Structure formats: structure tokens, C-alpha cells
């Protein structure tokens, strides 16, 4: 049940795009962890491409809004972290390919 909800949350987060790169935040590797508890509470740990990014708070709120809109989610908690720092190596192969223009 929780595994299914986690997958639904991850799928939903693919609709949130990083405004600068135009790629979804899951394929960019900005979502570090999605933890779902039995009561429908979801904890997301995420990062941004650069610390201090002026879009960081908007991204955090955007993720929170998106998670809360998933059926079965009772509460959402989104934490920003820069440990470890994001690097382009965290992107999916597909996202890297698109940014390389392949």
C-alpha cells in the first residue's frame, strides 16, 4: 500500500518542472527521498541545483502542493537539504540526453 502511494507521489512529482532547465525534478535527481507512513503522511527530502537558489522556496512549496494533491495523501512535509550537494551526475540518463541535445 505505502509502496504504491510512494510510486504515485513520484509520478505526480514528474509534473513539477525546474523552471531553468525545463526538466522534471524527479529526472533531474532533485528528489532525494520519498517516505510514506501508514497514515498517509508523506515526507519528501529534496534539493535544488544550486544552494541559495531564489527558486528554492517556490520549488519546495510546489512539491508540497503537488504531493497533497495525490489521492490518499493525508499530510506532506518537504525538507530542503544540500547534503549531499546536487551534481549533474544525479540526473537520469534520459534527462542528461535531452540537455545534451541528443
Amino acid at each position, binding site marked *: 500500500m505505502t509502496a504504491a502511494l510512494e510510486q504515485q507521489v513520484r509520478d505526480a512529482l514528474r*509534473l*513539477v*518542472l525546474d*523552471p*531553468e*532547465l*525545463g526538466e522534471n525534478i524527479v529526472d533531474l535527481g532533485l528528489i532525494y527521498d520519498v517516505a510514506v507512513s501508514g497514515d498517509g503522511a508523506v515526507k519528501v527530502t529534496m534539493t535544488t*541545483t*544550486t*544552494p*541559495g*537558489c*531564489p*527558486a*528554492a*522556496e*517556490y*520549488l*519546495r*512549496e*510546489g*512539491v*508540497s*502542493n*503537488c504531493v497533497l494533491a495525490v489521492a490518499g495523501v493525508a499530510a506532506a512535509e518537504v525538507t*530542503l537539504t*544540500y547534503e549531499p550537494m546536487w551534481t*549533474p551526475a544525479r540526473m537520469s540518463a534520459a534527462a*542528461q540526453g535531452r*540537455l*545534451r*541535445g541528443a
Partner: protein
Amino acid sequence: MAGVTLSRWTMSYFAAALVALVAAEVLMATGFGYPAAALRGAETLLVVHLVAIGWLSLLMLGALFQFVPVLVAKPLHSDRVAGAVLLGLLAGLSALAAGFLHLAGVVTVDLPFFPAAAALLGVSFALAIFTLGRTLETAVSPGLPVRFVTVGLISLAATVMFGIIFAGVLGGGVEATLFLEIAAAGVPVHAVTGLGGWLTFTAMGVSYRLFAMFMLAPELDRASSRWVHRLGAAALGVTVVGGGAAAAAGASLTGVLAAAGIPGLAALVLYGFDVVHLYRGRLRRNMELNSRMAICALASLAAAVTLSLVTVVLGVFEEHVGAIVFLVAFGWLTGLGLAKLYKIVAFLTWLECYGPVLGKTATPRVQDLADERRAWPWFVAFFMSSWLGTAALLLSSASMFRVATAALAIATVGIVVQFVRARRLIDVTNDLRFPPGARRPRLFLSISH
């Protein structure tokens, strides 16, 4: 909203700066100042300060009020100060311009223009340095760009101190021999610390982060980039301390400037290698217009360095210093500034308008706010005009210079129109332009959330 570092005043700085840039270009196109007037004549000094303070310093401060919080991942020490600084700088620049027009005989009213300019500009720049300095101070582990900006701000302080001395002497209120000696011989130090330290060194430091961010290139903090910082800081230290002392003593500045030039040149060469490394290491293979045009600006910097070396070797540097300064101010600093503004204006506009609805509804991408096919001819025209203007000065052709600067003004207006289009969301498709909850951005003042 906690954690958001969107500067309320940055767009206002950019708007005021762009007005000053176009005004300076129009003045040059009408034959006001060098080469029609003397290089150190009052008309030339007016144009130079309109570019250096009105355009480049306002652009740099506006960018730093937004960018320094990004560098340290902490909010700006005081956003309200940024608004007061802008008003103070504009008032100070107006007083300075009036002082130069008075010297040129255009303004006949006899008022204390230079003391007023010194006070307004001195206090305003001091407030800016204090605010940015206190923000930089909060950096947990100061990275390379933070260290560059710190040296840039120290250079700004030195430049302003020399400027206050000059204004005091020009205004007739300062008669002490020490200051008269500095005013007579210190102009090269003022120019090097301003153009080289404050503007170029800061731009270099900021560019390390911006190039990495916009091209997805690796963040540089390697031996060569650390040496760029050390050598550049050493060159500026020698210029300020040695140059200031030599000017005060009435001695020649040639030896001091040569001693500063060697580490300065080494810093610029290493910076060139770093930039090539960044461009080669980028993940984003299809470069956006801002990154492509930055190459033209970097080429202008390389050309200015080469031109300086060649003219020094040939013993004709002083004869062509006007052309070299023009190339640095327009081909390098203005070109880089306009190229990066093309990206930054769209990015800040996106944050204001679409940030609050992210995750709630479909939003455009930052690049959807700009139409590169429409913008690139204006940028190409800008760089071609700046290089033609440099050639005109090298050839001592005043008429050719007027044609080049008229083209420069037209190209700049064409680029400014692209910024306005981004602010007005004109290039965003109708279905994405104003989703529910999105805010319509104001042209000159950012909405602070």
C-alpha cells in the same frame, strides 16, 4: 516568505542602468566627449561617469543585491538599504554630471555640485559596500566567487575614495598639497581600480558561478582559479597602495602600474583557461544565447589585453588608451552585462510571476519568456558596433566613431526591447501566460513575496 531571496530593487537598478547606458551612447553618437573633446575634458568625464556609475555600477550593484544572497545562501542584510542606495547614487550622479557640465560651460549656475556629488556618491556606495559586506560575512564556507566579490568591493571602496578626492579638488574645497598631488596624478589608479578591480574582477568572480549554473558546467575551485584570485588581488593591492603612494609623492606611476600589470596579466590568462575549461565541461551542449554572447564579451576582454600589450611594446599605449578603455567598457563589461541580463531578467520575471503557482498548474519554462531568434541580431549588432567603435578610436576617426556609437545605441535599444518583452510576458504562449494565481510583473519594480 522565509528563505526566498528575491530582491525587490534589482529590476529598478537594471532599468536605471539601461537608461544611463543609452544616454551615454546617444551622447557619444552626437559627438559629445572623446574623441571630439579631450580625453580628460569635462565632456568626456561626464560620459565616462555616466557609463561607469550610471550603467556599470548600477548594473553590478543590482545584480549583487540579488546574487550575493545566492552565493552565501542567506538573505540580504537589508533590502530596504538597496532602495536608498539607488536613489542616492542617482542623485549623486546627477550632481556629478551637473559639475562636469558646469566645468564645460554648459551649466552656468554656480552651485556646489562636486561636494554634493562626493557626499551623495560616497555615502551611497559606502552603504552598498556595508550591506553586501555584512551579507558576505555570513558565508559559512566562503567559496571562490565570494572571495572575488570581496576584493571587488574593496576595490570599489578605493575607487570611491580617489573619486571623493578628485571631486574635492575639482570643487575647489580641497587645497592640501597631498590631495592636489593625488588629484594630479592619481587618475590611472582610479580607473584601474574601478574598471579592473570593482567591475572586471567582480564580473570574473560572478561569471565562475553563472557560467556553471547556466551551462551545467562543473563548479570551479581548482588551483588555477585560486591563483586568478590571488594574482588579481595582488595586482589590485599594488595598484591601490603603490599607485596611491606614488601619486601622493608626485612620483611617476609607470613602475607601479608595470609591477601591477604582470600579476594582473597572469590572472587574466589563467581566467581565460578556466573559462575554456567551463565551456568545454558543460553538460548543456546547446548553448543558450546568453552563453553564446558571453563568448563575444570574453573575446573582447582577450582583445583588450592583447591590444594593451602590443601598444605598450610599441610605446604607443597612452596614445590608444581611449580605444582600450572603450573596448573594456563596451565589448567586455557591457557585452557581458547585456548577455547575462537577457537571462537574469527572464529568470527573475519567471520567479515573480510563476513561482507562487509552481506545482499547482502548468507553467512556462524560463526560456519560454524569451525569443532568442528575435534577440540575437541585436546582440550581434551590438558587438560589431563596439568593435567598430574601438577600431575608429585606434584610427582616430571621429566620424567613424559617431557612426559606430549610433549603431551601438540602436542595438542597445533593440536589446532593451527584448527585456521589456520578457517582463511583459509577450513571448509566452497564450495558454501558459497567466494561469490562475500567477502575478503580472511590474516593469521596473520586482514583487517581493
